[in-house]
């Protein structure tokens, strides 16, 4: 699962403490990286809506907070793009929706 999906799914779960719940701990062995075309406008729109804390838990390569002028900061946006869309982890998220989701299935045909 891409970190963006994870971030969207956990972004507004009721009763979630900031930084808590539904953590996606990515094990190095579970990670795959696939290139995705970079779309600066799209990533810039995403930044203010992300749960930055949840992202940091999974990806230490990011700054503790979005850069102040992130919209024009291509290097920053590329880093966010990479973490959100190119890295795919197979971690085991905790059930976020009152038990609604159970751990992911084994990867399909080589994917993660």
């Amino acid at each position, binding site marked *: *699962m891409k970190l963006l999906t994870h971030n969207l*799914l956990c972004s507004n779960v009721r009763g979630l403490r900031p930084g808590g719940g539904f953590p996606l701990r990515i094990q190095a062995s579970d990670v795959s990286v696939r*290139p995705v075309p970079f779309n600066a406008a799209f990533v810039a729109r995403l930044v203010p809506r992300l749960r930055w804390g949840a992202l940091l838990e999974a990806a230490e390569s990011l700054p503790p907070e979005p850069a102040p002028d992130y919209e024009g900061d291509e290097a920053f946006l590329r880093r966010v793009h990479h973490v959100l869309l190119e890295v795919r982890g197979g971690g085991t998220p905790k059930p976020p929706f009152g038990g609604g989701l159970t*751990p992911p299935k084994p990867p399909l045909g080589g994917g993660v």
Partner: protein
Amino acid sequence: MKKLKLKELESCLQQVDTFENPKLLLEQYPTRPHIAACMLYTIHNTFDDIENKTIADLGCGCGMLSIGSAMLGAGFSVGFDIDADALEIFNSNIEDFELTNINMVQCDVCSLSDSMSETFDTVIMNPPFGTKHNKGIDMIFLKTALQMAKTAVYSLHKTSTRQHIQKKADEWDVKMEVIAELRYDLPASYKFHKKRSLSQRTTCPSASLRVPKYSEPATCFTHKEAQLYC
């Protein structure tokens, strides 16, 4: 990104693999490429709710609507479906089309309600109609979709449920608009409405609902089981 023409979109969507052994109880029939293309094209060109947007596709099946959205420049789409077999086909479609900005989650959409609010810009779906075993699943999908969408929900429904949906929409305080009437068995004969009052969108307190409607009898049941799908 190169602008796709409607005809091109439709012929791309004709290459999308669909259910191998459709599970009737899950109402597994794909949206036809022609209908999907017209629907998505309108959402894109008239309402600008696809390009660079985050999109959820509830009951995504083999991914017809997510894949079409991706082709029209969606920023990122997430498909949700209860059935692993359908998602496996979806996954191979993504590989075949070399689409990189789609993910999928295996879960019971009915268990998502109340948990995600305005997480996605747009929800586009062809939900189960719940005509036999699970009356009301179409409305659960709708309600969930409205909670998940920031801007608008586009959903296909049976003509016969239109009044009921209108009633519910009033109850939920969302604006409903019928944007197309599709005759499922006569694909050439439907027309998208030409006139729409876009100005109304701004007065709408929460996500608005646009409902291309069509008819198709179906049956359904759900189970309380869900899995993340990677």
